[in-house]
């Protein structure tokens, strides 16, 4: 079930109430059953796939811990292969198969392998990585193997983070299932506030922005210039609000029950470099790739060319993780390129800043860096959102088409946003929706600017009651009255 649904609201209320009513020894069982029900709301039979991977990795963890040397490595590799095989079959087989088929046709070879007719199990990429994290940490002796099958299953299936993260490390999450959590007013209300904020970002901002983004990105060749730029910038905020909104709901709902999940976003569009962006965006995934791929490849403790290659490969794989499409691979490659170029040009940029005297204006310099980083990241989002490479190429090559004429028409006062000759910015949607979408972004960034000074939830505690309650009413009833409650899934569900 989707987080932005009445069904989830009822589910959450029932599960949380039961959690506090049940004795501690039964809570794990209730949560496991609830998580199974939550998962089976999508495609029930797919729980069998999850069960198989859980069983494999449960035993793999125990055998790894009890083994040494080659045998220990064997169990690790067997676990990784079997887990990744499931991921490959459901997510990547058809992609690679289609590309091999194209290559075979090019070479005039016969290619007999057909496509598989499989629906991607929800959250497969996420819980796969969470399982891999477990076996690797056991192998590295940083985590003891979990002997309680039920607790291990709950670690993989814990419903708040089952389908779209945060991807938890066993050291953070496993022990929490053994701890008894009592009702704590402050903790529970903080969790609910986080959930409300996440829901606000998703249904009020993200789903409203989606109207404009989908209009353009579904048929990009019907648009050019400002329309493409507007849709792309809107997508940058849509995906942030959608995904961070989901993460907030996940983290908040876990917090209500006393579980602490890792933060997944930290105001990423305030990053001053792409490297910093990846320390603030989808933190659980970027740290996963850093710890298990980048460092395993050697990280930066290798000769320079190898270091650059490690960075590039890590982001290439990260792109592929997001989806079986060349667009995601290009997106990942772009980010890899940004990071490598960032390192290569570090000295040059420093000298340039000094030359133009920008280092004397640290605030201007800071916001210039933030602006450039935002532009680079937003440009890459084109490939992430486009349906295919052709659409992405069209968008990239038409971003600035007709801009001078557009500017002239605005200056002359002949521009009509509804039927703009060059770039309809309303894109067929009511003006109010555009205003609300922009207002939502401005409001959210205002909140982010306050968050520089600390947690807003903590700050709110010190405020007078009428201010706190005004904000609570505004957020909750903003969700109810201005939320877009169509059946819009969270973007990262497709991964």
């Amino acid at each position, binding site marked *: 079930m989707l987080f932005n649904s*009445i069904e989830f609201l009822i589910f959450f209320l029932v599960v949380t109430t039961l959690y506090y009513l049940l004795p501690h020894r039964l809570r794990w069982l209730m949560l496991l059953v609830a998580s199974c029900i939550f998962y089976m709301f999508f495609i029930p039979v797919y729980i069998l796939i999850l069960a198989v991977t859980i069983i494999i990795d449960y035993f793999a963890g125990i055998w790894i811990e009890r083994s040494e040397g080659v045998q220990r490595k064997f169990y690790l590799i067997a676990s990784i292969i079997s887990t990744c095989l499931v991921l490959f079959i459901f997510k990547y087989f058809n992609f690679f198969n289609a590309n091999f088929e194209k290559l075979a046709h090019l070479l005039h070879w016969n290619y007999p392998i057909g496509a598989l007719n499989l629906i991607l199990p929800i959250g497969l990429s996420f819980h796969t990585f969470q399982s891999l994290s477990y076996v690797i940490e056991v192998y590295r002796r940083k985590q003891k193997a979990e002997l309680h099958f039920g607790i291990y299953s709950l670690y993989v299936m814990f419903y708040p983070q089952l389908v779209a993260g945060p991807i938890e490390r066993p050291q953070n999450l496993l022990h929490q299932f053994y701890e008894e959590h*009592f*009702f*704590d*007013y402050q903790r*529970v*209300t903080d969790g609910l506030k986080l959930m409300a904020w996440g829901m606000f970002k998703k249904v009020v901002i993200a789903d409203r922005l989606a109207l404009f983004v989908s209009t353009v990105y579904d048929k990009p060749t019907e648009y050019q210039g400002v329309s493409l730029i507007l849709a792309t910038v809107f997508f940058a905020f849509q995906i942030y609000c959608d995904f961070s909104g989901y993460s907030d709901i996940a983290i908040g709902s876990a917090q209500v029950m006393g579980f602490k999940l890792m933060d997944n976003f930290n105001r990423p569009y305030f990053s001053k470099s792409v490297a910093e962006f990846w320390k603030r965006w989808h933190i659980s995934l970027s740290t996963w790739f850093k710890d298990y791929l980048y460092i395993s490849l050697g990280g930066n403790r290798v000769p320079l060319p190898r270091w650059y290659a490690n960075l590039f490969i890590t982001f290439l794989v990260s792109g592929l993780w997001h989806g079986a499409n060349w667009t995601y691979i290009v997106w990942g490659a772009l980010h890899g390129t940004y990071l490598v170029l960032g390192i290569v040009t570090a000295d040059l940029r420093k000298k340039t800043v000094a030359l133009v005297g920008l280092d004397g204006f640290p605030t201007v310099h800071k916001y210039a860096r933030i602006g450039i980083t935002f532009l680079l990241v937003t440009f890459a989002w084109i490939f992430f959102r486009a349906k295919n490479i052709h659409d992405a190429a069209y968008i990239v090559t038409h971003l600035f088409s007709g801009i001078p004429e557009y500017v002239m028409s605005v200056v002359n006062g002949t521009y009509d946003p509804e039927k703009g000759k060059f770039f309809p910015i309303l894109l067929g949607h*009511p003006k*109010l929706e555009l205003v609300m979408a922009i207002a939502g972004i401005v409001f959210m960034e205002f909140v982010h600017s306050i968050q520089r000074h600390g947690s807003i939830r903590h700050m709110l505690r010190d405020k007078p009651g009428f201010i706190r*309650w005004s904000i*609570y*009413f505004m957020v*909750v*009833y903003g969700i*109810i*009255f*201005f939320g877009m*409650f169509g*059946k819009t899934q969270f973007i990262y569900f497709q991964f």
Partner: protein
Amino acid sequence: MKSQTKIFLFKVGILAVPLMILLMSYVCLDPFKVLRKYDSYYKSGEPARVTLNQGYVSVETFLHNYPRYKYDSIIFGNSRSRFYPVSEWKKYIAVTECFHFDASGESLYGVVKKFEFLEKENIRLKNALIIMDSELLLQAVDNERYLNKQPPRLTLESSYSFHLKFLKAFFNGKFLISYLDLKIRGKYLPYMGETLSDFSFLYDPVINEVTFDFFEKMIEKNKDDYYLSRKDVFYVRDDVEKYSDPVIGEKQLKQIQYIAAQLEKQKTNYRIVISPLYNQKKLNPKDLEILYQIFGSDKVFDFSGKNELTSTIYNYYETSHYRPHVCKLILGLIYRGK
């Protein structure tokens, strides 16, 4: 800990008070008329401020009136079918009890569900008029919008999701503000135009027929004014005739075959009209051929594409609905070839 829980529940209660008040308002006011039964869902001659799910209205009106009127002649279709006057239709069929069994944005799925409903209720159809277009033929599954979703009485699905859609629609900010303002102040204001309607129409609850006399009077009073004020609505059409994409796939084919079987079984005197839409897109020849094969070319009448009916804007209220005089012309053509 218990006092913490009590404080928490108390504060949640305070937060929920406005929500409870609004929920009670929804139940008491029943803006979409889906919570209670009504003798008539519209007041003839007055504006129906809140747009209702016409499919729901049709079903409930049918069930409410059937015991008395025993309808045996039905007009099916989307909102375009509403302007086929029963009084005109009766000239061509034996004297019977007629009914408009229409829905807004009607789908092929919806027409099938109506036929299934009639079969289940053992209602014999002496005459049928089915008003179709490519948009109707395309939709082989239910529409999930609250105004277009088929009522549970037809789909036999749970009422929960049906009613939930209306509840969500009620809580839409734009709608709620306009609706409550109207209820409290009793005055219709221009800003409400986006969510509440201001034009009146005549309504006959026995045959479920709507007559847009408001617009007909405007046109009669000053045709030029009416159409001039809508010149941006009536977009310029291409000189070259275009065809709609083929829409009849496997699902649609099964549904059309079911309808044909029902009409055949009951020996119904029926006609199928392909609407003369403003877009002048001719129904795809492949789709038309399928309809001819299943129903017979003497039963299917295609008025789509470029022709006398679609050439003039005066045959339309706007680009979606053609006027009753066009419907009367069509009836003459399909029943008497005149």
